[in-house]
């Protein structure tokens, strides 16, 4: 699916004009919103590690999605497109000078660190990964996206997703494993 090169047909443009320039009508949007709002917000919170920023980007993602001129899509494509918009916004935010990702500077897990404690520790383990690794893992294992969809969403080459995902998964498994070794049962629940 190449969303950037596709041009909307004349009939689509007429329908869009009737909807006030938005890509779907309100009942359809409510349904779409109901199925995507929490997963998208969860993805943004975990990927950027900052709730306020995630909420801003989340609202902006929906606005851009609704006003975008990309052609009509089915539900899965629309969902993938929405996540792609959110990922691009996140990347733009990180590229701004002196505004690096908040969790970028979090140090790697070290053997001398104190034992992980409960749910907070689970989250800390995830936040110790690089933002790109968090994105890949979340899209693959929470959203269930395939490699092609992850590539479209993140702008990476589809061929490199498998390797990047493998590395990120190993790293997270090690971090969780460190939680097991320190005797925290909740980490492996």
């Amino acid at each position: 699916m190449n969303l950037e090169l596709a041009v909307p047909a004349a009939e689509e443009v007429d329908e869009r004009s009737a909807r006030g320039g938005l890509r779907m009508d309100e009942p359809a949007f409510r349904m779409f919103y109901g199925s995507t709002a929490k997963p998208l917000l969860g993805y943004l919170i975990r990927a950027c590690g900052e709730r306020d920023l995630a909420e801003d980007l989340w609202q902006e993602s929906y606005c851009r999605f609704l006003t975008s001129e990309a052609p009509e899509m089915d539900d899965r494509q629309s969902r993938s497109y929405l996540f792609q918009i959110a990922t691009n916004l996140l990347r733009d935010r990180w590229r701004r000078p002196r505004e690096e990702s908040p969790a970028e500077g979090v140090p790697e897990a070290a053997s001398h660190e104190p034992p992980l404690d409960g749910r907070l520790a689970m989250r800390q383990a995830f936040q110790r990964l690089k933002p790109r690794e968090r994105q890949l893992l979340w899209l693959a294992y929470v959203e269930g996206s395939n490699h092609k969809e992850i590539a479209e969403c993140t702008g990476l080459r589809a061929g490199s997703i498998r390797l990047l995902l493998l590395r990120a998964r190993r790293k997270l498994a090690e971090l969780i494993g460190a939680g097991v070794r320190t005797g925290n049962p909740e980490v492996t629940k």
Partner: protein
Amino acid sequence: MMKAYCEQEPALVAAVRSGALNSELLGHAGICPVCSEVLLVSEFLRDDSASLDRELSNPHASVIWRKAQARAREKALARATLPIRIARTCAYALAILAAPWIVLEFSRQPSWLPALGFKHLAVIDGNWLAALTGTALVGVTVTFLGIALSSWYILRKE
């Protein structure tokens, strides 16, 4: 060396996501190092996602809808006023380019000034075609071109 990929991986991920992990897949994950790692990470993320899901409360869809409507109106307005903004920019550019010529021209008495008025009409002597100088022709052509382009822009079907 641990292998990097297992054919059962997609099925395992789908099963964890749907909560339908059967004994066959569990048994496989017990002996396959890749799937064991995938299972550990998938369950970890599923639990995290579920706890996050319980914590989150989203604003009503209508809030986002109204915001998007306002954004769409802004976009439509920007598109509709594009010819005006282009014309204004061109006018500014022309004014800047013409300013030195106008200053130079008005600094001395123009040769056509004495010919103005009814006396000038007598000079034309019914020969209007001769009165259409090159400058006037350019002016008329540009005007009609401008009218044609702006009419096309406004009347075109989007």
